[in-house]
């Protein structure tokens, strides 16, 4: 006759004993093993911005808003263009009115609550435009801080958001040093640029790249050595934004200047 104590003991032992070989099934998952043998991802999406070519027309911002259903008049955008004006006294003036959706139609600098700042042409030392978008970091802080795993990184490097799982705590918005994240005005979930993942995964270019008339924006696969974007990144002098945060950003800039924030 088996006692209750003995029964409990033995069944626990049995379950524990069975768990060991069952765990092996996970450790030696043949599917995963074969996947890991050949490179798991043949694609790693990267972006190349040539700031020399950008004229601040804002076509990219408009195309992005329409493509990704970000309400046109909402004061948020997955991508934007910044204007930098450096004056002779060494001051740097920056703006991005309406995320540059309509381009830069006025010479005056939008200083938000401080109003418009007029700068005389002769006072300007240099001026240029810098398009911004999600850096699809290799070490994304937004993915790290999401408490429910609603934002995640795909094997090809793009960081996505699961709108059905996001709780809307805003930790990812706070965690991003580049300020690319916001809450979608309609869906309320965290929102960000995803290199138009629905397009690039079908072999198309992202909407902003398609819309840029000057070729200032290009997207490519850094794992393909023949990719023209890869070749530029590998052979020319490129810079990334805010490297000091250790996020390993994957949007590369040609013609970067120290004033860029």
């Amino acid at each position, binding site marked *: 006759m088996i006692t209750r104590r003995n029964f409990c003991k033995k069944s626990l032992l049995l379950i524990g004993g069975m768990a060991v070989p069952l765990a092996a099934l996970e450790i030696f998952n043949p599917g995963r093993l074969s996947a890991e043998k050949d490179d798991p991802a043949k694609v790693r999406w990267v972006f190349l911005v040539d700031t020399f070519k950008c004229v601040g027309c804002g076509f990219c911002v408009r195309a992005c808003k329409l493509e990704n259903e970000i309400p046109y008049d*909402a*004061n*948020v*955008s997955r991508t*934007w263009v*910044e204007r930098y004006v450096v004056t002779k006294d060494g001051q*740097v*003036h*920056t*703006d*991005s009115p*309406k*995320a540059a959706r309509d381009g830069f139609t006025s010479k005056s600098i939008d*200083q*938000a*609550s*401080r109003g418009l700042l007029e700068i005389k042409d002769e006072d300007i030392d240099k001026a240029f435009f810098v398009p*911004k978008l999600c850096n699809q970091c290799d070490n994304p*802080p937004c*993915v*790290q*801080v*999401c*408490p*429910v*795993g*609603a934002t995640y990184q795909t094997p090809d490097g793009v960081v996505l958001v699961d709108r059905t*799982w*996001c*709780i*809307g*705590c*805003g*930790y990812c*918005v*706070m*965690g*991003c*040093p*580049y*300020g*690319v*994240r*916001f*809450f979608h*005005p309609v869906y*309320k*979930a965290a929102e960000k640029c995803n290199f138009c993942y629905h397009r690039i995964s079908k072999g198309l270019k992202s909407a902003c790249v398609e819309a840029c008339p000057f070729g200032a924006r290009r997207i490519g696969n850094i794992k393909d050595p023949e990719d023209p974007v890869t070749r530029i990144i590998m052979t020319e002098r490129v810079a990334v934004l805010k490297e*000091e*945060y*250790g996020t390993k950003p994957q949007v590369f800039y040609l013609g970067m200047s120290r004033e860029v*924030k």
Partner: protein
Amino acid sequence: MVHGEVWTAKELFVYPNEYIYWTIQIVMYPFMTGLVAGAFVLSSLYHVFGVKQLKEIARFSLAFSFALLPVAMMPLLLHLQFPFRGIEVMMTPHFTSAIAAFGIVFTTYGMIVAAELWFVYRKFFVETALELRKLTVRSFVQQVRYILYSVLTLGAWDISEHSLEKDERAVKMLAGLGIPVACFLHGYAGFIFGSVKANALWMTPLMPVIFICSAVVSGIALCIITYIATMEIRKAIHAWRLKNNPALPSIEELKSAELQDVTMTSRYLVMFLILAITLELLDLIFRGYTAVKSWDILRSVIYDKDFFNIFVIQYGMGNLIPFILFLMPRLTIRRAVVGTLLVLLGVFMMRWNVVIGGQAFSSSLAGFMHYHLPIWPDSLETFKEGLFGALLVAATPFVLFWLLGRIIPIFSVKNTH
């Protein structure tokens, strides 16, 4: 309108998507968890370290800590874009996130406090249930109370000397276990901020420690003030009853807000206050001395934009004045009330200056954001994340505390009825 746009005013260059996303509720969150942790640490001073003078306030602060518990997560829920998905943090925690630990830490802590409270009051549950059982005819209310207390005994009816001794040991153990967990609960709230590398003001390893110290300060302060307030109310009620029935014991016999209790507790308050200020100043000096890239904008936020909030309200009114008030000889109840209220204000402003101050500048380090607290709500959003939402959070623990007081005797006075 985009979330955050209503209460954010931008100045100079701020990234287009940047708004003040963490608002008053995120100020309330560390403030409330701080009170929870602080109240618990205060009660543990008696239970674990045997500080006898705190006996009276210890039971009180334990019960108060329990009443504050559910309120610690209330501001978080009110702040979420999807409050009904909040449970996902418990169901699918993503452990690289500091917030994901919330479910585990919070439930552990909740269980410890509940268990400790149960051990403290078990004798009372059993006695009350047994008394009610003796009655042959029970009214409806008595019947409900009988069932309630019988359930609350959890079937442990033994109140012999031996088993009560065991209870006491359990309380001591739980209180001891509770201190690190309470510190963890709150230290980790500090970690949530301190680990955001994108935010120049938040990112410091000192943040969790600063949070714990100010938490203890605020918890003790709230316990003192609530203790005094309830004692005064009870005295008033008793005086009124005394008029109708002179046979009752006089007010002097009623254990009133003893100055002794308040003086003793305020000593601990001052101790932790010194610790908190030291760490905060260390952080400030260190930032100024090392002057890394972000210091330029931080300096203009700290010494210019937020000067009044930080140096006048937080350090001046919230730290310096109460410090003097408590250290002046012959503490009176009235002075203690003023002092503790100012301390609470100071700690609240510290949270405010961290949470709102941390978003007062853009990550571009070239622009500022100003927060305008929505007062009168015109939508659910401005209610939840406005003045009234915050007041709702602030008022809830007192309602819960009152309810708790209906069930368990928080004060040891037995002869008032």
